[in-house]
């Protein structure tokens, strides 16, 4: 038997009310893989992510983690599944009434039995990991957008999740910070074996980090291409996919030939 996929999407449909955004999304994500969901703005990438972490429920289809249905799971099973997730929201979504260190320690205090000083040490370590050492006692409103995003990443990693979900991690970051973030993501995967699901449309990071990807198409409202981006750009005969990956035929042509 082939290796059990870590995450499996089966014919998932996304809809807002009666307006279907995407249909028939089918994909498999292997353990320890960086999986990118890409597509144009407003095509339902983030919606798909929200469905995967249980903030929304898709009207059709099923989502499986380690072969077990996430949507049909009972409450306790669902909670154990959700405890393995770490989520980085688009704008960081740090809790604004708490300092950075409190933001990161809170999940640990609530979900683990560690003593307080141990938690403090770990939280400071996670913050140092994303390059925010020294900002422990700042409030989210006092730091920049890029720092908020990095702090959000530190919080997502607080409980050492098996799967990290990123909603546009590099949007709004300068090229160097976003490059560092890509490296950080790859290191996490390599060192901790974390599976990463990432929504993005930054071409540079797609080519730098993605092991596997799906392309959600605005017009046909379904997945029009899947596979590693580098082979996708070469093999896909869908013009939208090629245009997206080459930025309208202007970039990354070296992969295409």
């Amino acid at each position: 038997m082939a290796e059990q996929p870590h995450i499996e999407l089966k014919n998932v449909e996304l809809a807002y009310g009666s307006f279907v955004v995407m249909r028939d999304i089918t994909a498999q994500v292997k353990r320890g893989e960086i999986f990118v969901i890409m597509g144009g703005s407003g095509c339902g990438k983030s919606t798909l992510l929200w469905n995967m972490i249980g903030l929304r429920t898709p009207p059709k289809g099923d989502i499986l983690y380690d072969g077990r249905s996430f949507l049909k799971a009972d409450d306790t099973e669902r909670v154990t599944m959700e405890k393995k997730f770490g989520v980085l929201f688009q704008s960081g979504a740090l809790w604004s009434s708490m300092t950075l260190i409190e933001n990161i320690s809170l999940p640990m205090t609530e979900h683990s039995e560690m003593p307080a000083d141990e938690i403090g040490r770990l939280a400071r370590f996670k913050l140092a990991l994303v390059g925010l050492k020294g900002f422990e006692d700042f409030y989210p409103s006092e730091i920049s957008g890029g720092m908020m995003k990095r702090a959000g990443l530190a919080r997502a990693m607080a409980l050492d999740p098996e799967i990290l979900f990123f909603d546009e991690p590099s949007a709004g970051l300068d090229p160097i910070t976003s490059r560092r973030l890509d490296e950080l993501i790859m290191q996490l995967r390599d060192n901790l074996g974390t599976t990463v699901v990432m929504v993005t449309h930054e071409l540079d990071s797609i080519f730098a980090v993605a092991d596997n990807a799906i392309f959600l198409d605005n017009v046909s409202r379904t997945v029009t291409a899947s596979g590693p981006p580098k082979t996708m750009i070469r093999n896909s005969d869908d013009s939208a996919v090629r245009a997206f990956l080459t930025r309208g035929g202007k970039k990354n042509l070296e992969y295409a030939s």
Partner: protein
Amino acid sequence: MEFAARCEEKKITFDQTTLPDGVCDTLKLALAVPEQTDASRKIEQLGRVARLGNAVVRAGQSVRNTSEFVGECVLSVARMLRGRAQFRRSDFTLFVQEAGAEALGICMMISFLVGLILAFVGAIQLQQFGASIYVASLVGIAMVREMGCIMTGIIMCGRTGASYAAQLGTMKVNQEIDAYRTFQFSPIDFLVMPRMLALFLMMPLLTAFANVAGIIGGALIGVFMLDLSVMEYWNQTVKSVTLAQCSVGFIKSFVFGIIVALSGCYNGMRCENNAAGVGQATTSAVVAGITSIIVADAIFAVLFNILKI
């Protein structure tokens, strides 16, 4: 653009080359992406019956949403009583400070003035009968039984209820509430409970201060306009304001505290994901809060009348 669409409809080739360059390019830009026909909203002309039906359905939905929220809060209170509440003590003390000490000044000032007004209105009427001493009873009973808790409720609704709605609404827009969910924190436990508890505990205290301030306001009129002595006024107040009257006011203030917290938090949590949504949530929090306070007060009035308290 309409012209181009019409041409396409009638299968006529539309020669754009004769147009000036700028117009031609802009037109190309506009026609580049085909219209997503099913994406544009359909504006349907509905008949009166259909509109009425829609309104009823919407009203039904909002009743269901509200009771769902209240239900979740009850479950959360049960969790809290069993000692499994998940909120931070520092949050709670902050809310207590905001809803208590910081609101004290405004509550006392308004109540003082209300007591003053009541005394004025009563004085003019009662003086005609030479019963001006009863101004003390009028002000005392009215303050303790009704005005103290209602005024406090309304002030707190505009002050704290609105701020709760705005806080939670902004958190929702900022996805902070989603972030709580992804860490398996119940937003109700974490955000609503400390706020509700703070108001539940602070409202009666504020009401007590408001009552005293109102009675002082009335006494001022009694002493300076009606030539009553302070002792006289005080004795009459003590005689007429019984423990039962006081407890009626306090029972109501507990309930009003919960109402203010619920309407603030409910509207904040259901806020739409944009800045206008936050404004709307705040507005409906205050409107719903004040309305529910008055309605609840009316129900209490009937209830206490039946119970003859």
